[in-house]
């Protein structure tokens, strides 16, 4: 557990460019597409951007933020997403209501979290390798349960009206997934900054040995972190399935790298370079604007992907500009 991911010299905070790079990049990207992409700045598109490009990734990235905050990483968020989606759809297809199905989905995601918690907190495996193992196992579990990767559908007549509402409906004037992001973000922000658990997790992230020697029950904190991460990632799986009324195997994988990227880009917004909720959300917003905007601008599909990759790298490069390892 000596993975120190975000620890940087505190003096980095004095360089305003570093901390302002990400919000500036978001503003620039927004302005660029507002000018050059037809229809980008219209409300309909912005809503689609928030629902399709932002919300689901944001939930996964918030989960990732918890893991990175405690000095680790969770590569198995993809497994948690897929297992939640599988259990949710299986329960609906078996005729259960939406509420039991959601509970089933979260329980399945939680199972992945418990495996991680055991590997990391009890066996002492580094989070990177432990969650990599869980990802492998999750892959097999999905292949075995779906005959190699066949999607599972909720029969058309059985689709409860709550599903489209979950995926696209409005509540309090906001799309439900976006509302979920805001609620989760507020809860996690309070958890990380105001609770004892948050402070212990931060200590683990900055100085794992210090945390151990000061008597923090590191195993308990870590176990809680990885179970929470899996549960939160599972919410994405449920939204994903609600949207298409189906479970598509291995669909969680697309979120993994972007969630890690957003979390680490987000650390540049904090003075101490710690992962933080605001930074992560702005990071996700950046990625969402880029992917939505490049689509609208009508670039060749494959150049879009390269463009998105270059934008992310530039942002990473600028934001980590002066954070070199001291010699």
């Amino acid at each position, binding site marked *: *557990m*000596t*993975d*120190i*991911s975000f*620890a*940087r*010299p*505190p003096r980095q905070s004095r360089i305003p460019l570093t901390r302002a790079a990400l919000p500036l990049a978001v503003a620039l990207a927004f302005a660029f597409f507002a000018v050059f992409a037809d229809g980008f700045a219209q409300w309909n598109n912005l809503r689609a951007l928030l629902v399709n490009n932002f919300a689901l990734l944001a939930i996964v990235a918030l989960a990732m933020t918890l893991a990175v905050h405690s000095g*680790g*990483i969770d590569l198995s968020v993809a497994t948690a997403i897929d297992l939640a989606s599988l259990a949710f759809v299986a329960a609906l297809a078996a005729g259960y209501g939406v509420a039991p199905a959601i509970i089933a989905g979260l329980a399945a995601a939680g199972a992945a979290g418990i495996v991680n918690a055991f*590997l990391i907190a009890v*066996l*002492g*495996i*580094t989070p*990177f*390798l*432990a969650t*990599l*193992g*869980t*990802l*492998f*196992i999750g*892959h*097999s*579990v999905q*292949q*075995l349960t779906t005959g*190699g990767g066949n999607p599972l559908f909720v029969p058309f007549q059985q689709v409860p009206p709550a599903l489209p509402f979950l995926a696209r409906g409005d509540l309090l004037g906001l799309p439900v997934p976006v509302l979920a992001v805001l609620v989760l973000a507020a809860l996690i922000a309070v958890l990380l900054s105001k609770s004892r658990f948050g402070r212990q997790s931060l200590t683990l992230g*900055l*100085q*794992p*040995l210090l945390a*151990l020697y000061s008597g923090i029950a*590191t195993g308990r904190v870590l176990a809680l972190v990885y179970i929470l991460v899996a549960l939160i990632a599972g919410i994405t799986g449920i939204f994903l399935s609600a949207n298409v009324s189906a479970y598509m195997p291995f669909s969680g994988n697309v979120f993994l*790298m972007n969630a*890690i*990227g957003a979390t*680490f880009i987000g650390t540049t917004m904090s003075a101490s370079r710690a992962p933080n909720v605001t930074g992560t959300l702005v990071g996700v917003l950046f990625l969402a604007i880029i992917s939505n905007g490049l689509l609208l601008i009508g670039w060749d599909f*494959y*150049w879009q*992907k*390269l*463009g*998105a*990759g*270059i934008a*992310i*790298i530039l942002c*990473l*490069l600028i934001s*980590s*500009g002066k*954070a*070199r*390892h*001291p*010699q």
Partner: protein
Amino acid sequence: MADLTAEGADHIAAKPTRHAGQSGFAALLPLAALLAFGLILLVFALSSAQFLRPGNLFQVIAQSSILAVLALGLTVVVIGGGENTLSGGIDLSLAANLGMGAAIYAVLAQAGQPDLLAIPAAILAGLALGAFNAFAIVVLGMLPLLATLGSMTLAVGIEQVVSRNTTILVATPLRRFLGGHDPLFGLPILAWALLLTSLIFALIVHYSRFGLNLQAVGGNPAAARAAGLNTRAWTAGSYLVSGFCGGLGALFSVGFLGASSTGSAEYLLPVIAATFLGTVFSRRLSPTIGGTLLAALFLGVLANGFQLLNISSYWVAGIQGVLMLAVVATTSLRRPL
């Protein structure tokens, strides 16, 4: 608050590592691992007549050569960067690097360019990505995980632009050579190529001054610096080697498949698994060239044996994962955290 840096992490990490544990238990692990490997070979041999045929065994080696050559690159990075997966050495861009190199080679070959141009182009592309990683990590001070994540996106983007996300068939002399068999024993050329590459890597990493310095830099950067080594240059060098392996893997993959493939991302996780699984074959439980080669072959044998025994291939990923976890769990038991 002085020790909040990534360097500080190394100091912390250096203290409670496994190197201290020279107990009999640790010394027995490589032996036990080899025995387990042998036992599994035996089970496969007893249950399928096909398995032990030289044709089959060498086909497995040829098949594993792509994964293995990438894992050799990652091994060099992990040796030179330390085994801490976040602040230490890691290269996530290897698989994408292979995809990019294969696409570049195939497109050039399709355009009628000779191997004389296409081969260096694939290798140079790999080296360029390695150089990008080295620059981002050593000069800009980015975390390897993050830098190589970025270069992975970049390589995937370039691959898609170059190949338009299609499989491009190639029928070049290189493909005929690498996909063929040697005239003397009739064994696959790729198997020879892998064994030769591993031998060269093992000689350099484990029996040369270069390798010794690399291990010093990865094992204890502060001590290496005090001894007068330019640690930054060594770290940069390890990412260049890794980039080279990505290019080499691209050529192997084109030779094996006869085409550029759009599925290179599948290698990302097995490459990491092979590298860390390989640590169990070394006495100090650290990554070695021989250990990585054995682990990559082991993963290949496992998949092949399952096929011959008619066990669903759906189990393969899960069993690879459990094996890797078992290995890293045994090696991390002595750590305080």
